[in-house]
């Protein structure tokens, strides 16, 4: 595309035609502040914080949506613009419940940061409506507090455009405008899938997960409890960000060290049960293929996807793998096999999971998730909540030594660690299924067709005369497209991996916050996914069926994948839910 010549703050610049002023300024190394703007999905010019002056224009224009043209002269930082932005912030504050000292986002709030940047001295300059706390706590995973909402609509954009749910939106008008559900029902009363993507993009403290840390602190202080913790693959790919480390830093060893110092009796890894999931799921796939079962088989690791299926496509429930998710399989094995082996009463085991996910908080409250007659997992906390615990405990995370997971449930293969990226479960399953079909060791290890952060990926593999067509989708809007193609008969797959969050768990709703600016300019999910693929490549064991602890559990306890006992302990059931 042709370039146009413009000047920004007097500096000549050649930028692609069609760029916005915001993008052009970035090329010039000038950051124009934004609040509501999210590239591609929320380009609505609503918040007015990005106003700049354009020579000859009638008034200031919104840089996020205003295209450049030949000869344009832009001024991004004049005294007038600075004053505009400051007043804008003061007006936003007039209708924002200002409780920065106790706010969950204090220190991590985009509004707070901008107020400091623009020298807002009096947060009460305009009286405004002084909103009172307005809590929606009806959902199992999160809180909505509209008294802090500044109506940027970023949550609305991700819910509708990434996730195809659209359960939240702007209601009423004028001063009464607020973000809510249809008929102002609670989030727990509508078809919200608990993915938490809205939390990830909330720039203030209006949206946050329900706290699980209080229960964890309590259990850690209780000498009668044997407290075990599992960490999902994607946590290690992002936890460091909460401590100022670059996006894409693998902090597995430091994460283990910090959990041990927090006082967990055993620091285990969800990687172990991801391997177990592959054993059960690959078995289920081969059985369905051989016995004419319902195909395509669709993965069940992502509780956001499961809830979406139950609300929006209940007719696809027979396609879902009956496997519990790795989180739940872990909890089930902990309270059965592990408890028995170590002679611990399962009732005295407190099972904590650290997840990149808010839907996992919902998942552990589901029915049919209690292999030992008590919940498989007692509390789920997000990556963000773990970071908060580490900070409160005063641990110098960045300088902790790298430590190893405990035995036996800390054992995981490379196949398990890639579960955290879109396509990872598919690749892990293929590594095992191919060897099982051919009966030969040393099958292919890397399946590049299903890697990468694209929303929809397809591949076909022919193994031992059997052709398997697979599809991988992440982000529920992409998932919907694939389901529609399956339903219409346009596509014929045998195995499908769906993840609710765009990019998979690395971009889950429980991961550390990154400001809008980073969302707009950095491939966050791609950088985090690289961590997992490098982690996998560095491991000696890279196929789930090679996991020695998984083998031992089948030998000693479960007999074989898909056995009657395995079904009792490691499998679950689903329920159709209503959309409205």
């Amino acid at each position, binding site marked *: 595309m042709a370039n146009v010549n413009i000047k920004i703050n007097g500096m000549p610049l050649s930028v692609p035609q069609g760029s916005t002023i915001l993008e052009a300024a970035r090329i010039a190394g000038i950051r124009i502040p934004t609040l509501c703007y999210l590239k591609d999905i929320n380009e609505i010019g609503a918040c007015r914080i990005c106003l700049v002056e354009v020579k000859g224009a009638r008034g200031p224009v919104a840089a996020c949506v205003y295209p450049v043209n030949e000869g344009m002269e832009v001024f991004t930082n004049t005294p007038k613009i600075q004053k505009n932005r400051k007043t804008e912030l003061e007006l936003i504050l007039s209708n924002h419940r200002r409780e920065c000292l106790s706010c969950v986002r204090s220190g991590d709030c985009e509004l707070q940061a901008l107020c400091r940047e623009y020298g807002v001295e009096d947060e009460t300059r305009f009286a405004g409506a002084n909103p009172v706390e307005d809590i929606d706590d009806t959902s199992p995973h999160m809180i909505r507090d509209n008294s802090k909402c500044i109506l940027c609509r970023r949550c609305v954009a991700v819910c509708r455009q990434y996730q195809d749910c659209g359960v939240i939106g702007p209601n009423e008008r004028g001063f009464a405008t607020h973000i809510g559900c*249809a*008929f102002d*029902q609670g989030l727990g*009363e509508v078809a919200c899938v608990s993915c938490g993507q809205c939390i990830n993009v909330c720039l203030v403290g209006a949206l946050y997960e329900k706290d699980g840390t209080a229960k964890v602190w309590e259990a850690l202080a209780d000498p009668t409890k044997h407290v075990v913790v599992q960490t999902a693959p994607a946590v290690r790919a992002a936890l460091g960000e909460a401590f100022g480390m670059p996006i894409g830093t693998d902090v597995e060893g430091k994460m283990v060290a910090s959990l041990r110092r927090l006082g967990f009796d055993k620091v285990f890894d969800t990687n172990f049960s991801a391997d177990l999931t592959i054993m059960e799921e690959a078995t289920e796939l081969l059985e369905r293929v051989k016995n004419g079962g319902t195909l395509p088989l669709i993965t069940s690791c992502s509780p956001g996807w499961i809830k979406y299926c139950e609300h929006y496509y209940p007719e696809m429930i027979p396609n879902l793998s009956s496997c519990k998710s790795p989180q739940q399989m872990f909890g089930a094995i902990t309270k059965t096999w592990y408890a028995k082996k170590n002679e611990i009463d399962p009732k005295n085991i407190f099972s904590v999971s650290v997840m990149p996910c808010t839907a996992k908080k919902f998942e552990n409250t589901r029915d049919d998730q209690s292999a030992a007659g008590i919940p498989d997992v007692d509390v789920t906390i997000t990556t963000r909540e773990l970071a908060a615990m580490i900070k409160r405990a005063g641990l110098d995370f960045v300088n902790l030594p790298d430590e190893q997971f405990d035995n036996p449930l800390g054992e995981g293969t490379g196949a398990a660690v890639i579960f955290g990226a879109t396509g990872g479960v598919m690749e892990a399953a293929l590594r095992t299924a191919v060897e099982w079909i051919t009966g030969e060791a040393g099958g292919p290890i890397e399946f590049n067709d299903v890697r990468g952060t694209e929303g929809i990926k397809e591949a076909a593999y022919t193994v031992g005369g059997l052709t398997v067509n697979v599809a991988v989708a992440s982000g529920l809007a992409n998932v919907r497209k694939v389901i529609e193609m399956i339903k219409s008969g346009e596509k014929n797959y045998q195995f499908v991996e769906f993840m609710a969050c765009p990019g998979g768990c690395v971009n889950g709703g429980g991961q550390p916050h990154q400001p809008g600016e980073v969302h707009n300019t950095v491939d966050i999910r791609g950088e985090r996914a690289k961590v997992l693929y490098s982690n996998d490549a560095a491991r000696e064991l890279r196929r789930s069926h090679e996991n020695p602890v998984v083998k031992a559990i089948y030998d000693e306890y479960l007999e074989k994948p898909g056995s009657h006992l395995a079904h009792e302990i490691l499998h679950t059931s689903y329920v159709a839910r209503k959309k*409205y």
Partner: protein
Amino acid sequence: MANTISAVPFQGTPEQEKQLRDKIAELKNEGGALMPVMQYAQEIYGYLPIEVQKIIAEGMDVPMEEVYGVATFYAQFNLNPKGKYKIQTCLGTACYVKGSGDLHARLEKELGIKSGECTPDLKFSLDGCRCIGACGLAPVIMINSDVYGRLVPDDIPGILAKYED
């Protein structure tokens, strides 16, 4: 925040639903069809309860929240039916400074409903309205076509008692 689902039982008929679905089928593929569909639905039902918004959302393939957002943005859409006796409190400037806000609050209290709602027995509905041109009688309420002026809140129970039937 309490939900805004109407307490009045929905009384839509299959014929009405067919009428609405036909209209949706006719307009669905035109750009900007949501508003006309909602207007048509309100013509059929008189208001847009959750049962009707659900039909619209499914038919138009948009989330119900989007329908609801539009319904609450524009004053022309009602979430509740109108009662046999339609009460309107004038909230125009003259009535308002003479205390019609207090009358309105008293009506809400006596009827047990909020502004914009209807009693479950479909007898009374309550709305605020703009100036009705009776400023000399401020503050004023209207019940259907009856006008009551120079009121204080304690007059309200007596007035409502006239509409016992």
